């Protein structure tokens, strides 16, 4: 057995979730560099920073530069917990200092304004020209506010926050919810597929019902939805049924009743879920009248939180990386753009078949792309990637649930390969449910560490 063999060590570094590099003794760090190429990453979110960190882990000799417009990252995952006062806006802040100081990742805090894919050069608003050997773009999403009559970015920023990309809108929505009149109605508009964080709108609704139960017990939460189902729906609905006296829709109830006890509540829940088949699709907003028009009619509201349809972040459009679908087509093995040479697109913005638009997915894509680039530069074949995703979600502060999947490349498509055991079991014990909530909280911390520290 030769465990000090550099190839073996490289394999180890690539295949295992690494602890903080700074925390690793020298012998557990990856071996010496094979190249000095310059890899530039556009977008300092989960995907971009994970890619930058793992490039340096796989090959410390690489020069890695992240171009990002904001000096401090606000993590979107777990950001609904600002609304229920579980965390503050400051708790969402993630510093780039560890990546800079401990990993040697360079940061350029600036906007990209020019791109020459043939010469492989980016230009920034601050006047820098940044040449690269490979470009990784992790642009995230943009929200298409204009999809609904009466809604636009200015309205959202001023009075009708989406709060799906954390920032001033998150703080605004939190203030609105705290100030909502006694017995008022909070309307959440869930987005159509595909969108970032599939269980997120349903978790947000649940956390706010729980919060109102303590702070505004006559309040109502109405979740308007163009869809009829969502990932983790069965376990989430069961949580609502147990925690918020929510009556599960008949079609779900029939499926669930054979496996688990479903409670029948005689009085209406604080929470309503208006599905697409019941007219839940939003048509427009009457901002002055505080009303949302749906296919089922007008819904009166006190606080409105519409999460609009999404597409790839604006920088992906600017760099010519998105197609008419609004998302970025890529080679499925190495996430190389099919539209621009020497560019890889990862995270929410790319088209990744069965993989959801989640931070976890962006993180695992970033690692496989970092590996693919390092191997390609070294003239070695890169191993076949295997991707993972886990979405944790809360139905209440102490009520956790999840979906956990593994993906492989099958016939050129990213395909889910696990079948059973994707979700928290329907017959999970109270302890398993509590434990899942603890895991969710722990994941927020350890995941941030894996991406940024």
């Amino acid at each position: 057995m030769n465990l000090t063999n550099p190839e073996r060590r490289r394999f180890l570094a690539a295949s295992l979730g690494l602890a903080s590099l700074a925390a690793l003794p020298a012998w557990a760090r990856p071996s010496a560099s094979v190249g000095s190429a310059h890899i530039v990453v556009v977008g300092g979110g989960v995907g971009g920073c994970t890619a930058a960190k793992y490039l340096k882990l796989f090959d410390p000799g690489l020069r890695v530069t992240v171009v990002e417009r904001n000096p401090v990252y606000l993590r979107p995952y777990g950001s609904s917990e600002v609304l229920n006062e579980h965390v503050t806006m400051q708790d969402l802040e993630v510093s780039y200092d560890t990546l800079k100081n401990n990993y040697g990742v360079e940061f350029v805090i600036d906007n990209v304004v020019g791109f020459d894919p043939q010469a492989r050069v980016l230009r920034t608003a601050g006047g820098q020209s940044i040449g690269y050997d490979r470009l990784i773009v992790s642009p995230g999403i943009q929200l298409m506010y204009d999809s609904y009559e009466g809604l636009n970015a200015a309205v959202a920023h001023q009075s009708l926050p989406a709060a799906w990309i954390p920032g001033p809108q998150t703080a605004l929505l939190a203030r609105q919810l705290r100030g909502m009149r006694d017995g008022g109605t909070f309307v959440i508009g869930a987005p159509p597929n595909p969108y970032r964080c599939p269980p997120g709108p349903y978790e947000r609704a649940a956390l706010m019902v729980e919060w109102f139960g303590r702070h505004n017990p006559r309040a109502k939460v109405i979740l308007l939805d163009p869809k009829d189902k969502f990932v983790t729906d069965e376990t989430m609905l069961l949580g609502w049924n147990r925690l918020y006296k929510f009556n599960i829709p008949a079609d779900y109830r029939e499926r669930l009743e054979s496996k688990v006890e479903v409670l029948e509540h005689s009085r209406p829940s604080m929470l309503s879920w208006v599905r697409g088949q019941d007219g839940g699709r939003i048509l427009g907003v009457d901002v002055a009248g505080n009303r949302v028009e749906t296919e089922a009619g007008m819904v009166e509201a006190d606080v409105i939180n519409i999460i609009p349809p999404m597409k790839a972040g604006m920088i992906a459009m600017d760099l010519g990386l998105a197609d008419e679908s609004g998302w970025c087509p890529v080679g499925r093995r190495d996430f190389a753009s099919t539209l621009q040479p020497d560019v890889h697109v990862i995270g929410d913005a790319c088209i990744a078949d069965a993989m959801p638009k989640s931070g976890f997915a962006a993180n695992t894509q970033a690692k496989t792309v970092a590996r693919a680039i390092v191997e390609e530069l070294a003239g070695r074949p890169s191993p076949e990637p295997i991707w993972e995703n886990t979405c944790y979600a809360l139905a209440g502060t102490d009520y956790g649930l999840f979906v956990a999947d593994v993906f492989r490349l099958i016939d050129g498509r990213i395909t889910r390969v696990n079948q059973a055991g994707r979700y928290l079991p329907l017959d999970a014990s109270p302890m398993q449910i509590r434990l899942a909530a603890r895991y969710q909280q722990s994941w927020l911390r350890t995941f941030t560490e894996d991406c940024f520290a």
Partner: protein
Amino acid sequence: MMIKPTVKTSLCAALLLAGLGSGTSTLAAGHGGIGEPAPENWTAATLRETLAAMPAGDAERGKELNQSLFCASCHGNAGVSPSMNWPHLAGQKADYTVKMMLDYQSGLRLEGLRGRLMHHVAVLVSEQEITDLAAFYATLPAPEDAVTPRPEVALAASDLPAEVLVRKGDPRRLITPCASCHGDSGQGGRREAPELAGQNPLYFVRTMHHYHDGVRANDGKKTMRAFAYRLTPTEIDDLAAYYADLPLSN
């Protein structure tokens, strides 16, 4: 985030007993600070009595719990961690595993945020579940050739190689041979001394440094701190490599 540990009543009694038996308060340096008073450390007597009062474990039930409580996510389906970050539990002595769960429960072992999740788990499980899990890990063969990196060690002239420290110790530094507590083949010794054979070297090294710095101080008489304090970093690396590959050489 508010955390309200709900230690099971019978364990409260056991820990209270532990507290009464110990004269000294032992707040570990670098204690995670869970808002609880510093837990009292064990004496030989309180540990013996507490372990004796635990229900008998069932390895079959433990195998199921390893999945249903998500232990396997970090510690593996067969007690071999799939990650560099966590200890292997395969083959671990049941008494040691039980003690660790009780220590996580009381906060005696936390190691900052790292141990926080184990604290959350430990306050939710019953005594029976603890002993079932411990029984399961004890039935598993010690890890061999687990895919964790091994230290590359260049011992200084004044360092003693692991083999010597394990078998003979170092009387000049009052270091008892490791084997006297952890066994000739690293299989663990009486009561709390854990099995070390096949252990993840990264975890081994981290643990020794935690003992050295007082971040970990759940050993009754601080014996491990005394040893860790006198060993050099390269000796610790060498011991980690020695124990990691011990099952292979046996």
